[in-house]
């Protein structure tokens, strides 16, 4: 169409009709992209326009800008007042270009991550030592009666970590005791050595498995809970509030949890030992044909107090490791929900791994001193 006022400009009138809203703009945009013509003067005629919202107005403004960039010009005609206001409102916005996201070299990124990971391990070591130190100071302050122990918190945590965990730990250990007795008994019975099952289960569970199973369960149960609790307190600035009140977050939050775990884990280990022996007794009675009195006298001969004490002696150390790792990870949580999940996962994985490592170290120590 030729313009009325002069021959220099080609004028195209485009009717803007129907609904231009967020629902329709995705379909409309591709169909109108080719209407941009260099050198032309575009007239957008809005007299048949249905609904217009921000997305639609943005699409129109975008077309006008493209037309300008292509060396043409454009104008609006016949738009209702609200529509014109909306377009005018949007016109000055979104002009500035967003900074491009930085491109990273994958090789450099990999190297950097490996380096950060390695440095992170060292940092974790420092954090562990520092948290252990702070907790010890807090503990000695309590021992020297300079500070009072928060017994209410301790007992509350013992209830959470120990008492409420008894059913699951007993059940799990009972089943493991049964499995070991059945598997061991199956092979031992072919030598006619059914009775040795009692030695096997007694020594194995009381020395190693009872404490290990319990510690792993507690790392997953209470360790995760502690990280999540401390982490969400960190996110909501509750930890900062304690600090500002002149209280030590380690003394108020970490120490009661640590003490509770150190008390809870040996008790739970005993529960686990007893449950595993009960499992073995059931399998012995019904599967291997070992009468109860024989089972008990054999157990008395095979299982010395030393075995039980060796198992129990590891529990407080494992408890301390679980508690410390959980607390450290909790304190490392930053503002986002993602970070909370990440640190809770890390806490459980690290705690279980360290529990197994500790068990190995103890095994070496006991082997060296010959008990």
């Amino acid at each position, binding site marked *: 169409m030729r313009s009325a006022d002069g021959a220099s400009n080609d004028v195209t009138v485009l009717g803007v009709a129907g609904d231009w809203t967020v629902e329709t703009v995705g379909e409309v945009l591709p169909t109108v992209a080719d209407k941009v013509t260099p050198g032309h003067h575009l007239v957008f005629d809005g007299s048949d326009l249905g609904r217009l919202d921000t997305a639609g107005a943005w699409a129109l403004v975008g077309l006008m800008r493209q037309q300008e960039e292509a060396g043409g010009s454009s104008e609006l005609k016949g738009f209702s007042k609200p529509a014109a206001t*909306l377009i005018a409102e949007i016109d000055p916005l979104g002009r500035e270009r967003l900074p491009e996201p930085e491109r990273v070299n994958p090789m450099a990124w990999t190297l950097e991550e490996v380096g950060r990971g390695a440095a992170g391990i060292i940092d974790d070591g420092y954090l562990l030592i520092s948290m252990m130190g702070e907790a010890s100071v807090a503990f000695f302050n309590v021992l020297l009666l300079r500070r009072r122990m928060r017994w209410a918190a301790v007992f509350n945590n013992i209830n959470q970590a120990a008492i409420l965990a008894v059913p699951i730990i007993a059940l799990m250990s009972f089943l493991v005791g049964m499995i070991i007795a059945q598997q061991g008994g199956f092979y031992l019975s072919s030598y006619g050595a059914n009775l040795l099952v009692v030695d096997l289960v007694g020594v194995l569970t009381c020395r190693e498995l009872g404490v290990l199973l319990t510690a792993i369960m507690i790392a997953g149960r209470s360790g995760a809970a502690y990280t999540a609790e401390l982490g969400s307190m960190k996110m909501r600035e509750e930890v900062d509030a304690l600090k500002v009140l002149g209280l030590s977050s380690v003394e108020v939050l970490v120490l009661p949890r640590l003490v509770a775990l150190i008390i809870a884990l040996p008790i739970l280990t005993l529960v686990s030992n007893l449950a595993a022996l009960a499992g073995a007794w059931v399998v012995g009675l019904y599967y291997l044909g070992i009468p109860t009195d024989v089972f008990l006298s054999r157990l008395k001969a095979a299982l010395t107090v030393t075995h039980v004490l060796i198992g129990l002696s590891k529990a407080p150390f494992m408890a301390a490791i679980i508690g410390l790792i959980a607390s450290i990870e909790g304190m490392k949580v930053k*503002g986002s929900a993602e970070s909370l999940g990440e640190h809770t996962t890390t806490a459980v994985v690290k705690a279980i791994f360290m529990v197994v490592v500790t068990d190995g170290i103890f095994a070496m120590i006991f082997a060296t001193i010959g008990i």
Partner: protein
Amino acid sequence: MADEVARQGDEEREAVISARDLVVGFSGEPILDGLDIDVWRGEILGVVGGSGTGKSVLLRTIIGLNNRSAGSIKIFGKDYDDMSNQERQEIGRRWGVLFQQGALFSSLTVLQNVGVPLREHMRLPEELVDELARLKIEMAGLPADACGKYPAELSGGMIKRVALARALVLDPDIVFLDEPTAGLDPIGAAEFDQLILKLRATLGLTVFMVTHDLDSLVTITDRIAVLGNRRVLVDGTFAELRSFDHPWVRAYFNGPRAEHFTFG
């Protein structure tokens, strides 16, 4: 469709939301008991009331986050209880909510946060989603370089603005604002008021606003509803409420902080 009628700007008052005989309570005494409230299309309604009178509870009940033990809520002329899941989802696109603490998704950037409703409800090219999200961020008065930041890096005022941008990104018919200016400095709060007025003028919004900010109440609300005794005590303009005879209402609208507002 109801909204087409409304966008033509009819003179008759149309209730976008009308609640009747609402009873809401959590184990024990009800917090709201026999409450009636209407929100008219195109108005800015301020809801005030003393602490614990259930302003936020009312807001959360209307948007379906709290259960009510009795009463009915009509939204865009339809009873909420009679709606199919499909209809409820569609309603979700037609309202926007600004939560008191912003409720931004902490693991997404500002741009992604604002883009969430677009991405989930609409089929739009990825580029357009980002453009529209950015447009709304700028309309909410934030600089474009805020787009790449995470919520944890934002100030309180910025969080409110991002949350408003997210509430408005689908151009809803109604927005619910829970204490939008709380925690903002007076300049920021005044800008926020102007922003809401401007958005209403351009987008034809209806606004349901829980607030305690007397300046906001005076400057932008068309009508104020006062909650008390578990229901709406009274509603009217600021000037009308000044002369209402109830101890709390009198103290609120004629107290030392309200004194300097004068009306011809």
